[in-house]
């Protein structure tokens, strides 16, 4: 090994703690990049391949009922490549050995061979026989959650008739990568299943002989989906079309898209922060080494090493640190990616997991790490190259401390000499002090932007459950029924309170802006399912006009008192002009509310309802569940307590994991920045500090100078960090917002306080580590060595 290479290795060993602090920060950036970007590409590609192979449709529409003869007309729409018409229906399932009923989403399989679109992928057993009317294939997660294997049976309430169905196989489908039941907030594989049944059997069970109520389309390559959707809507309108839509509004697709969006923004936001800090740290440390090595650089040049060899030597130092950091990042990133893949496996049902991160992502991550370190070192390496040998051999001129305006102002305050030393040093290196402060502020910001989630979710849960949805159960009916039927529900065992409600699909229009939503009709006196206004006060569903949720109002660019065109997709499909009566808070969905009797009046009909909210006597829950399994026209039930529990459990788990991750991140940033800053300080001022000790200052007094600057910068960084964190939190919330849900911004004092405590503790610990070095400072040695 060449002597210069030995010097490199010894320098690295001597710098191990500083190098490690930098490597950890860089590693963090690499790991997050690897995980988020790697998972983003893996998930995108897996989904694309799955969609392609299993012919996932591009346009979807539901309707009340249309004759099969309409199909050629749909196929003739310009731009349509393939059409699949199906019968869909939902029914209550009675699962043997289970108290609570489950909800089944039934889908027809064509009598003539395999489906053209949305092809289910068989996982076990076989497809149902075309001739049989009691065979079903179920989605694999449902089978696994309930322990079903082909050959098992379950019972279903099909059109008021209880039937025994035999499971012939299990399958997965690109339509149901993410499956969530109506009214649910989280996937519930045990209580919600997809059941495929042959078309003749479906037609018989759901009264759809020679007819269909669901259309999927695949488009030609350059077809414009908006045009196709418009034409399809025109065709389906007379048959109770509920509005066609593209993949963006397909539930499973939309959820995966949301996840992808999050991964992508993570990949684009966090790693650059880490890489930026790494550049700063490498720049600071290598810059200091080059300054310390001044005479050695001169010597190397004097004895004939070229400028290139000398600068490569210092670049190599940075690259070595980068290699360690990148390696750590790759190991941790791979581990995190695996963890995330496991998490996805519980939410998403993919038949094959291309969840391994692609090899080229590793290459990109490595290149990123090396480039970052090189960028940080390049300035110092070049200055080493530029240093003329003759100058390098003579000691550097003392740094140019000047008496500035600020200086004179400060002096008025009569600070101690040591305070002056601290302040002068900050002013001497303003950029470095500024970046150190910014680094610490970023650590605070990262914490604020992750810790606030806890309060935010509490607010979300409080708003979505305790303040608004105070019912125990939602009973969802297959169709609207006359209010008389409310009595049947009231008579069910254990029912304490009943409130009817209506749900109408509708298109809201304001000028050229339009939105397809559900309008909820509720009694003005509703006390279980309540509506809160923006101040958190309970408001009644209005007899005149419509209450819109905030996001819906802003999407339609409409305010209180403005007229809105409402095109109902239910009943007679009437169009009415209704005024906006008010704007209310809602984090889940894009609801719009109206009093139920007002809706009935508008449609000129007697009083009806399509779902009911109930409270139950907990002692009679079992009897209640047994009774509703036989209730006709029941499409589904939502147990609010179960929903809340599932929601809290999932969220809690995720929040805890991510909180740990973010605290680690913030601590790493803080340690990386403060430890290196303090070490550089110590190195630059060892002589000054040793002189003071020789003059008779105590260790504590001397360490004040060292600690003072870091402490000053760390404290100054707190309010900046809070501001940055609040900004980051706001941006994150905006990123999360979708039609499915939004998240309130709740920034409590505790969040800021905890963030600051964590960062300040980490800063104090790393500064104290350096202080220990100061205590061990050998006064004679420091004064003897020539700087």
């Amino acid at each position, binding site marked *: 090994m060449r*002597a210069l290479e030995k*010097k490199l290795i*010894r320098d690295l060993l001597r710098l191990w703690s500083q190098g490690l602090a930098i490597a950890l920060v860089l590693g963090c950036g690499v790991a997050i990049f690897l995980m988020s970007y790697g998972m983003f590409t893996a998930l995108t590609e897996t989904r694309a391949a799955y969609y392609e192979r299993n012919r996932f449709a591009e346009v979807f529409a539901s309707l009340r009922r249309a004759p099969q003869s309409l199909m050629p007309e749909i196929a003739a729409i310009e731009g349509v490549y393939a059409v699949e018409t199906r019968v869909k229906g939902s029914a209550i399932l009675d699962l043997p050995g289970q108290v609570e009923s489950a909800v089944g989403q039934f889908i027809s399989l064509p009598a003539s061979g395999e489906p053209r679109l949305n092809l289910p992928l068989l996982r076990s057993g076989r497809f149902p026989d075309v001739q049989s009317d009691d065979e079903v294939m179920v989605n694999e997660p449902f089978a696994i959650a309930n322990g079903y294997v082909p050959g098992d049976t379950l019972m279903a309430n099909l059109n008021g008739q209880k039937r025994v169905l035999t499971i012939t196989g299990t399958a997965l489908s690109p339509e149901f990568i993410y499956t969530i039941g109506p009214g649910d907030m989280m996937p519930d594989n045990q209580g919600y299943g997809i059941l495929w049944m042959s078309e003749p059997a479906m037609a018989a069970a759901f009264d759809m002989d020679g007819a269909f109520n669901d259309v999927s389309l695949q488009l030609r390559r350059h077809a414009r989906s908006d045009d196709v959707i418009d034409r399809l809507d025109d065709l389906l309108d007379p048959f109770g079309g509920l509005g066609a839509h593209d993949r963006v509004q397909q539930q499973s697709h939309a959820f995966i898209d949301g996840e992808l969006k999050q991964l992508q923004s993570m990949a684009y936001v966090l790693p650059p922060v880490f890489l930026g800090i790494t550049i700063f740290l490498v720049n600071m440390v290598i810059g200091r080494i080059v300054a310390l090595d001044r005479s050695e650089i001169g*010597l*190397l040049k*004097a*004895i*004939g090493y070229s400028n290139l060899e000398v600068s490569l030597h210092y670049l190599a130092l940075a690259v070595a640190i980068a290699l360690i950091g990148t390696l750590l990042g790759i190991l941790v990133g791979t581990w995190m990616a695996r963890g995330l893949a496991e998490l996805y496996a519980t939410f998403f049902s993919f038949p094959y997991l291309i969840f391994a991160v692609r090899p080229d992502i590793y290459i990109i991550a490595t290149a990123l790490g090396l480039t970052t370190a090189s960028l940080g070192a390049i300035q110092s390496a070049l200055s080493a190259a530029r240093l003329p*040998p003759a100058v390098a*051999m003579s000691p550097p001129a003392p740094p140019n401390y000047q008496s500035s305006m600020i200086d004179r102002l400060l002096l008025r305050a009569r600070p101690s000499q040591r305070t002056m030393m601290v302040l002068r040093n900050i002013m001497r290196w303003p950029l470095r002090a500024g970046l150190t402060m910014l680094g610490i502020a970023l650590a605070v910001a990262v914490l604020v932007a992750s810790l606030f989630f806890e309060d935010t979710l509490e607010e979300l849960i409080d708003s979505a459950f305790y303040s608004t949805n105070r019912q125990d159960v939602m009973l969802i009916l297959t169709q609207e029924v006359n209010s008389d039927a409310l009595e049947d529900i009231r008579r069910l065992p254990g029912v304490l309170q009943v409130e009817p409600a209506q749900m109408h699909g509708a298109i809201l229009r304001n000028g050229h802006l339009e939105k397809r939503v559900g309008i909820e009709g509720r009694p003005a006196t509703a006390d279980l399912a309540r509506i809160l206004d923006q101040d958190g006060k309970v408001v009644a569903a209005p007899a005149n006009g419509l209450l819109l949720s905030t996001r819906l109002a802003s999407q339609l660019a409409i305010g209180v008192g403005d007229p809105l065109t409402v095109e109902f997709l239910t009943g007679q499909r009437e169009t009415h002009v209704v005024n906006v009566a008010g704007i209310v808070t809602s984090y889940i969905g894009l609801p719009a509310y109206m009093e139920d009797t007002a809706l009935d009046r508008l449609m000129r009909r007697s009083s009806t309802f399509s779902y009911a909210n109930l409270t139950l006597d907990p002692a009679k829950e079992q009897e209640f569940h047994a009774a509703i399994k036989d209730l006709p026209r029941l499409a589904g039930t939502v147990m609010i307590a179960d929903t809340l529990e599932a929601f809290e459990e999932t969220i809690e788990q995720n929040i805890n994991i991510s909180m740990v991750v973010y605290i680690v991140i913030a601590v790493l940033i803080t340690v990386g920045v403060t430890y290196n800053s303090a070490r550089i300080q110590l190195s630059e001022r060892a002589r000054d500090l040793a002189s003071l000790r020789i003059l008779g200052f105590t260790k504590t007094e001397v360490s004040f100078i060292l600690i003072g600057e870091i402490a000053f910068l760390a404290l100054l960084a707190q309010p900046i960090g809070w501001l940055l964190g609040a900004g980051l939190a706001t941006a994150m919330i905006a990123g999360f917002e979708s039609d499915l849900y939004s998240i309130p911004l709740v920034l409590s004092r505790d969040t800021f306080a905890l963030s600051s405590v964590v960062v300040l503790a980490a800063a104090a610990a790393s500064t104290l580590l350096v202080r220990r070095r100061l205590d061990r400072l050998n006064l004679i040695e420091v004064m003897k060595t020539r700087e």
Partner: protein
Amino acid sequence: MDQTLAENAVFRTQAVTKVYETGEVRVVALDGVDLTLHAGELTVLLGPSGSGKSTLLNILGGLDHASEGRVWFKDLELTKLNERALTRFRRDHVGFVFQFYNLVASLSARENVALVTDIAPNPMSPEEALDIVGLGHRMNHFPAELSGGEQQRVAIARAIAKRPEVLLCDEPTGALDSKTGVQVLEALDRINKDLGTTTAIITHAAEIRKMAHRVIRFQDGRIVSIEHNETRLTPSEIEW
């Protein structure tokens, strides 16, 4: 200048001037120096502080550029060389010894010498070079474990390991006491005698001039006198 001497010239300068311009101040460090150093010669450069000795040595060694005038190393005109060629020149032909040793702290004595042998075309082994300065037995020691005189001898070993044609020493004994300084001078003298290395030594200890073939005195950036020693003393006979 007679013919044989001209042929023997290792360094030759012609009206070399060096001017430092730092802000307002203009310092004339060298003011028209004409000088020739001959092959195998040991020269001592004397002169008050700030008279331009180091400046001249740095220019001869290719560490610095002259502001005006010309400098030759044998047939090679140094004043015409660019940075890269000067590096090459130093690597191939020149050995330096400085007042503050300038050892690399993180490398042992042998490794400090190896810094040079790694890149020189025809070096001796680091061990051999250290033997010449009498430090073969200390070669695995780090600079911090060596005395000032020992460190300086390592620096000399490092300078001669490449078998340079010239050895330029700027106050090699400046940081040493007289007794330790003598050991260093003995090493330089032996190298000059045994290897025939042309050697130039800057010093403030006027007594050292007695070991030189020639003594050159500087004042205000000019050469004020050149004298030949008819008889030379050995370093051990010198004390200051």
